[in-house]
C-alpha cells in the first residue's frame, strides 16, 4: 500500500474478495498519495504486513492468481478533448507515481505551483546498469511522445525537451523520428556523465539553469519527468490503463541472462531473477535499483513495486564495498560531488553526529548520488554517513519546530 512518497493507502478489498487486473486495491483521500491496483486477477487471501525488498515492512494485499487475467474495462480517452484537470484526474486514478525511483505521485507533479514553460523528459539513465528507460525509448517512442503531450497539456507548458545521453544513438534516432513534425518537441543530446539523470543536474545540463537549494524545478519553470512515467501517463490518459505493470532492468555480472522485463507489480524478485536465468553463484550484492543509489535487497521474495526500476546482482569482480580506511584528503570527492559539497568533511561530521557542522556544510543539498563513495580511494562509507547526517538534521529541525526555538542557526 506504500509505493510512493506520502501517506499510505487504505485497502478497499478484504480477504476472500475476487479481484480483476487493474482493479483498485487501495485508495486514499490524502493529497500526496496514489492508489494501488491489482496486477492479477484472483482471490485476496490476506491483507497483512509483508516485507518489501528493502527489508522494511508494509501493509500488503496478497492475491492468489487464478491465471485468468481478467481485465477490468479501461476507459479510453482522447487527449484532444480533455482538460488539464481531467488529465490529472485520470493520472491520479491510474495511480501513477514517479517511476524513476522517487515515487512522487504524478498527478501532483502535473499541477505545478508556478507557471511552467518547459517539460523535460529524463532520457538519461539514472544509474549505470539500468537500461529500462533506454529500451522504452527505442520501443515505445510514440507512446512517450503522447505522454509528453499529455504532460504539456496538463501543466500548460509550451515546450517539451527530451534529454538523452549521447551513448544511446538508437534512442536518439527513434525519438528524433517520433518527434518529427512536432515543433514544440525536441531532443537534447547530453554528455555521458553520472549523475546526469538527477532532476536538478538534468535541468542544468539541458537548460543551464541551477535550481536553487531547497527549491523545485517549477521555480525555474520546468517539470521533469521520467521516461517510464511519461509512457504510463500516456497509457493512463489515452488507454485508461492503470499502473499495474512496469519495465524492470535485471542486470549485473551475476545474472545469467540480463534483460529488461515487463513485469506486473507485486511479482517477487526471485521470480524475476528466475525468469532471467537465475544467478551465477551468490552475488556480491543484490540491489533493488541501480548499484549507486539502490538499497540492498534483503528479501528476495519481496514484491516488485512501482518505483523499482531495476535489480542489480553484482558479482565480486564488479562490486565494491566500504572499507573505511583513513581519509587521505585527496579531494576526489570534492571534485566529484555534483552538488558541490565537501563530502569528506560532511561524512566525518555526520558520522560523529556533529549536526551543527553538518548543517553548516549544507548536507540537505546532497542528492545521495554516491559518487563520493565511488571515487574514494579509502573506500569510506561517505554516502551512508551523509544520509545519517541528513536524517539527524531533519530530526533537529523537527525538534526545533516542536520547541519553537532555534537550536542552531
Amino acid at each position: 500500500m506504500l509505493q510512493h512518497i506520502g501517506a499510505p493507502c487504505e485497502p478497499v478489498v478484504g480477504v476472500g474478495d475476487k479481484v480483476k487486473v487493474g482493479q483498485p486495491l487501495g485508495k486514499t483521500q490524502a493529497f500526496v498519495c496514489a492508489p494501488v491496483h491489482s496486477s492479477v486477477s484472483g482471490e485476496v487471501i490476506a491483507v497483512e504486513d509483508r516485507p518489501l525488498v528493502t527489508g522494511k515492512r508494509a501493509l500488503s494485499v496478497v492475491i492468489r492468481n487464478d491465471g485468468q487475467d481478467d481485465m477490468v474495462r479501461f476507459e479510453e480517452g482522447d487527449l484532444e478533448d480533455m482538460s488539464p484537470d481531467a488529465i490529472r484526474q485520470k493520472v491520479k486514478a491510474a495511480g501513477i507515481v514517479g517511476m524513476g525511483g522517487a515515487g512522487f505521485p504524478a498527478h501532483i507533479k502535473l499541477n505545478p505551483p508556478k507557471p511552467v514553460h518547459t517539460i523535460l523528459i529524463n532520457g538519461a539513465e539514472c544509474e549505470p546498469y539500468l537500461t529500462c528507460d533506454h529500451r522504452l525509448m527505442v520501443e515505445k517512442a510514440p507512446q512517450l511522445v503522447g505522454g509528453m503531450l499529455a504532460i504539456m497539456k496538463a501543466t500548460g507548458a509550451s515546450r517539451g525537451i527530451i534529454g538523452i545521453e549521447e551513448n544511446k544513438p538508437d534512442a536518439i534516432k527513434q525519438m528524433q523520428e517520433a518527434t518529427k513534425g512536432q515543433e514544440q518537441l525536441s531532443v537534447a543530446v547530453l554528455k555521458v556523465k553520472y549523475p546526469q539523470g538527477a532532476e536538478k543536474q538534468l535541468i542544468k545540463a539541458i537548460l543551464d539553469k541551477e535550481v536553487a537549494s531547497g527549491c523545485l524545478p517549477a521555480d525555474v519553470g520546468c517539470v521533469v519527468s521520467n521516461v517510464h512515467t511519461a509512457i504510463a501517463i500516456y497509457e493512463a490518459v489515452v488507454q485508461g490503463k492503470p499502473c499495474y505493470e512496469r519495465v524492470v532492468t535485471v542486470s549485473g555480472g551475476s545474472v545469467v541472462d540480463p534483460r529488461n522485463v515487463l513485469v506486473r507489480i507485486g511479482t517477487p524478485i526471485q521470480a524475476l531473477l528466475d525468469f532471467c536465468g537465475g544467478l551465477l553463484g551468490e552475488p556480491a550484492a543484490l540491489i533493488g535499483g541501480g548499484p549507486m543509489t539502490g538499497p540492498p535487497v534483503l528479501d528476495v521474495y519481496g514484491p516488485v513495486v512501482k518505483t523499482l526500476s531495476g535489480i542489480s546482482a553484482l558479482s565480486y569482480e564488479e562490486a565494491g564495498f566500504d572499507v573505511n580506511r583513513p581519509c587521505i584528503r585527496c579531494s576526489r570527492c570534492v571534485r566529484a560531488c555534483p552538488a558541490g559539497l565537501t563530502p569528506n568533511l560532511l561524512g566525518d561530521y555526520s558520522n560523529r553526529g556533529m549536526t551543527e557542522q553538518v548543517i553548516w556544510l549544507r548536507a540537505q543539498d546532497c542528492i545521495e548520488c554516491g559518487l563520493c563513495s565511488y571515487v574514494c580511494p579509502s573506500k569510506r562509507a561517505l554516502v551512508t554517513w551523509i544520509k545519517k547526517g541528513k536524517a539527524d538534521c531533519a530530526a533537529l529541525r523537527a525538534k526545533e519546530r516542536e520547541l519553537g526555538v532555534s537550536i542552531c542557526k
Partner: protein
Amino acid sequence: MQVRTGPFLRDTVTIEQVMGDVLIALIPTVVAGVLLYGRHALMVVVLSTLSAVLTEAILTRAPLTPKGIVGDGSAAVTGLLLGLILPHTTPYWVPIFGSFFAIALVKLAFGGLGHNIFNPALAARGMLLLAFTSEMIYRTDAVTGATPLWSTGSFSWPLFWGNVGGVIGETSVVAILLGAAYLFYKRHINWRIPVSCLGSAFILALVWGLDPWHTIMAGGLMFAAFFMATDMVTSPVTPVGELVFGAGCGVLTLMIRQYTPFPEGVTFAILIMNALTPAIDSLTIPHVFGVGASHKDRIRGFALTVGIVMVLLGALAVIENNEPRVRPLISDGHYLPMHELLGDPDVDVVEVNETRYYVVRDEEGDPRRVAFIAERNGFNGPIRFLLLLNSEHRIERVSVLKQGESPGFGELITRTAFLEQFVGLDKDSSFTAGKDIQVISGATVSSRAVISGVERALERFDEAFFGVDGPGTLNDGTFLGQAASFGGPLEVEVVVSGGKITSVTILRHSDTPGFSDPAISGMPERIVAANSAQVDVVSGATLTSEAIMSAVQAALESTSVGQGHELELDPEALETLLPAIIEAQGPVEAVSGAAVTSGAVHGAFRDALNIKEGQ
C-alpha cells in the same frame, strides 16, 4: 548476510595505488640524483625510505612481514621525499633520524595517515635544518654560492637538466617535471597548487626585479611545488583553497628568501601554509549546487582573489622597497669622544683592513689601550659596536653604537646586563653562546651576532697589530697552495718574483664545469692584477672564487712564514673543521696537526658562510 550499504560500485583507485604512483613519479628524480651524486646519494635515499617504513611498522605494531612493513605505502612516500630533500653529502644518521622524526612525531602522534597537519618530510627537514645546520647546509649553501639565486642571468639550462650541485632531488627540473607529468596523467594532483605556487613566485620575482626563471627553478621550489605542496593530506581539499594555498606557498617562499640568505624558504613556507590549511578549508567551502548565481559568483570570487593577491604583492613590494631605516644612536665613530674614552689625549689613529683603531701607545710603541669600532651582521642589518681594550688587550667595555634589530627583541643586546658579560675576556677566551656568554631570551640571533662579532673583532685586532705582515714582503719563488672548494680540493701554483705575484695557475680542481669556469679563468688575472689574494669574487662562481683566493693566500702564507712549499690537505681535519666553522659562525681552534690547512679553510669560509643561524 552482512548488511552492506551502497554504492556498490567503487572506483578501483586505492590508497596503495595512489602512494605507489607517487613513488613511481619520484623515480626520475631519484635516478637523476643518483646519476649526479653517486652512490652516497642512493644510500641516503634508501636509508631514509627504509627507516621511515620500519618506524611506521614498529610503532603501529604492524606484523613485520614484508606486506605489513610496507603497509599502505604512505611511510615509504614520506621517507623517499625526505631523502630527496637532503643534501647528498649528509651523514647517514641524518636520514634515519629525520625519517624517525617525520613518522613518529609528525605523522603518528597526530593520528597517522590522513590526520597529520604538517607535511612529515618537510617538518623533518625543517627540524634538521635548525638542529643540525651544518650537516644540512654545507653543500646546500655551496649551491647557492655557485648558483646565483639572485643574479640577473636568464633561463639556465644547467639548472634545467640538473647540472647543479645540492640537494638530491631538487636539482634536475627535467626529472621533476617527468614525475609530475606522471602524477597529472594519473590525476593524483591537479594544476591548481603547482601553478598557483610557481605562478605567484614568478610574478613576485618579476615585481621585485629578480630573475623569475631562476627563482622558480633553483632552491627546491620546483620540487616542492609538485611533490610537497601537493601532498593531499596537508593541503586544502577545496578548489579555491588549493589556489590560495599554492599562492601562499609561493609568496611566503620568496619572502623568506628575501629575509634570510638561506635559499630553502620553500620548506618553511609550505609548513606555514600547512598550518593554515584547516582555516583555508573552512573559509573556502565550495560553491554548493543551486546556491546563488554560479557564474557571477565565480567571477566575483576570482576578481576578489586576484585583488587580494595584488594588494598583498603591493604591500610586499612597498615593504621591500623601504628597507628598514636604521636610526643610529651615534651615526659614526668619528664623533665619539675617543680621547675621553681612552683617558689619554695622545691617541694614534691606525687604519688596518678598513678598520680604524684608536691606539694609546706605551713607551715601546706597542698598543696600550685601544678603542675601535667593529661591525657584524645581525638579524636586521649590521650591528656596529665599540670595543675598548685595556693594556692586557682584554675587553674593558663593549657598547652597541648602531643596530637595526627588532624593537623589543633584538634590541635587548644594548642592555648592560648582556654586554657586561664580555668584560675581561680576550682573544683566547671561549665565546660559546649560551655557555660562556648568556644569550638573551627573545634576542638570540642578535645576541649571537654580537658575540661572534666581538670574537672576530678581537682576532682582527690581533692580526692587525701582532699578526703576519700583509703582501708586499713576499719572498720570491714558486709556491703551492690548496683549499677546499665545494667540489673537492683545489690546488694552485703561485709564482712570486720581485715581491709581486706574477702568475697564478690552477693546477687541479673538481668543481662543476660550467659554473666554476668563469672563476677558474678569471680569478688568476684578478689576483695578479691586484697583487693580493683578496679580490672581488667572480659573480656566479662565488665559492670557487673564494676557494681560489684562499688557496693563493695559503700559498703566500707559506712564503712569508717560510714554511714548506708543499701543503698537504688533511681531509679528515677538513671534515671536522668545516661543520664546526659553520656552526660556530666564526673561527674555531685550528685542528691540531693541520694548522695551516685550517687557516686556509678559515679564510675561505669565514666570510663566505655568512649564514645567520636559527636558534
